[in-house]
């Protein structure tokens, strides 16, 4: 179920004094089963872009195709689109409302018309996926820890069984332990459940470890695109648009500049370790 965006532009408050162009002529394809990291600083347009992927925003101009179907053409039900493309918003735990965890997680599938008999299974599966104990089902979500609340919110989206999952800053505000748990959950959903993942983030370290392809946005446009190696070669440019490269990649770049024989195209700590070991063994 590829997502294809063609010449997409979006203007907030179009035709009004506060008019603001948020996206300008964006063209992008996301293939089935891909893991894409979408990066950019606040105001770069990344959240606005992903809100088009399931029809939450309607483009000012341009088209969005999901499985080859223009989602804003006549006769297309946005509800069925949202069932395919699930969205986990920033701080999703702020949207919890149910009296129990069960009620909260079951809300999405119930609205989709999943029969009551099946709901319990859906909820159990979703909670198991995010690694929450089923005994929490009857608890109030508001009694849980911050990290657990966020997992309940993610389970609520997973219970709709979307093929594509968009996560907007899913680790923001979590501590290192919570962050690692959420990131390994996302990796699991990609590798084991074969979901297409779009991870929106401003943390280079987080996306570098997971994404196969990075898409970098600045002032409403896609400015860089490619594998992490390719994107991180532009360290100075990334700095200039308020981003950076992982610290260990920067180390290799500095060493190379100083004349050391290293390949700077590594971004995980393990790969950089090997590169430095190779260097030290020749010294």
């Amino acid at each position: 179920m590829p997502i294809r965006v063609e010449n997409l532009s979006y203007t907030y408050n179009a035709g009004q004094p506060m008019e603001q162009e948020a996206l300008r002529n964006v063209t992008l394809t996301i293939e089935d089963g891909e893991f894409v990291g979408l990066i950019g600083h606040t105001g770069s347009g990344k959240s606005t872009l992903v809100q088009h992927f399931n029809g939450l925003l309607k483009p000012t101009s341009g088209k969005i195709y999901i499985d080859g179907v223009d989602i804003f053409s006549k006769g297309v039900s946005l509800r069925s689109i949202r069932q395919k493309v699930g969205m986990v918003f920033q701080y999703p735990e702020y949207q919890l409302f149910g009296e129990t965890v069960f009620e909260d997680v079951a809300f999405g599938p119930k609205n989709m018309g999943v029969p009551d008999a099946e709901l319990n299974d859906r909820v159990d599966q979703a909670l198991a996926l995010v690694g929450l104990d089923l005994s929490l089902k009857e608890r109030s979500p508001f009694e849980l820890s911050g990290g657990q609340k966020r997992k309940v919110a993610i389970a609520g989206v997973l219970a709709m069984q979307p093929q594509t999952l968009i996560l907007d800053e899913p680790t923001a505000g979590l501590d290192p332990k919570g962050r690692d748990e959420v990131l390994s959950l996302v990796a699991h959903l990609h590798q084991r459940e074969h979901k297409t993942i779009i991870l929106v983030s401003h943390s280079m370290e987080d996306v570098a470890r997971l994404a196969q392809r990075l898409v970098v946005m600045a002032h409403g446009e896609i400015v860089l695109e490619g594998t992490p190696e390719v994107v991180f070669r532009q360290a100075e440019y990334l700095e200039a648009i308020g981003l950076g490269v992982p610290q260990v990649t920067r180390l290799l770049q500095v060493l190379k500049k100083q004349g050391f024989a290293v390949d700077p195209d590594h971004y995980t700590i393990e790969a950089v370790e090997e590169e430095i070991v190779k260097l030290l063994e020749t010294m």
Partner: protein
Amino acid sequence: MDALIRFVDVSFSYSSDAEHELEALADINLDIDDGEFVAVLGHNGSGKSTLAKHMNALLVPTSGKVYVAGIDTQNAERLWEIRQMVGMVFQNPDNQLVATTVEEDVAFGPENLGVPTPEIHRRVDEALAVVGMSDYRLHSPHQLSGGQKQRVAIAGMIAMRPRCVVLDEPTAMLDPVGRREVMQTVIKLNREEKITIVLITHAMEEAILADRVIVMEEGRIVMTGTPREVFSKVETLAKLRLDVPEITSLANRLRQRGFDQIPNNILTIEEMVNVLCQFG
């Protein structure tokens, strides 16, 4: 010299009911000196926010004592004196701003302290200059970026002329640009305005800027020292599920591969480059 903030055998429980007793702080002894910059690390639930809230009497100990400039925080008559001396900045920039313009927001604290109007103007001007937000004085706070909002919140503290500012994960909700803005402001407060800083954070690149790092776990202080001392204990930090800077972690891995000429307390890229230059 006496400490600006002193914890003596402090324990704290959120529930006084013995059966459900949950000790959020246990046997804390801690001195924070005037002018110091202290970073507090620990994962969620380790007690670091509870510790911070004792520093300006938002919470008072279940047992033990906290003194701010020698004043016992349980002395209710002197509560406002304590709150003026120790200001707090929280994580969510949207929950801290109250007024319709930036300057009104910054003036809110000193107004409540009964500071005369001409003096308030002077303080607002100064505070906005310190955080680099003078150009935005007539803006509405909701039009600002997250980093700018946090700087306005900090200006609101400074306008009360505190001796210490306690910041509870002030950058957790910000992007890299916002983080840098806030951290530059924090460092300036400490170095130029000589304000004592207590920074609660998960970000190691922020903690390495401090004079001293304190690590908390299950309501206790489990490590304390300079950033270099604390971050050299990579394994202990990993056990506590805390991060170390990537570069420190790399140095540690290289040591394990037998390159023990590499020190275990490298904190920056420059230090690592210098070490590697001395090889061979």
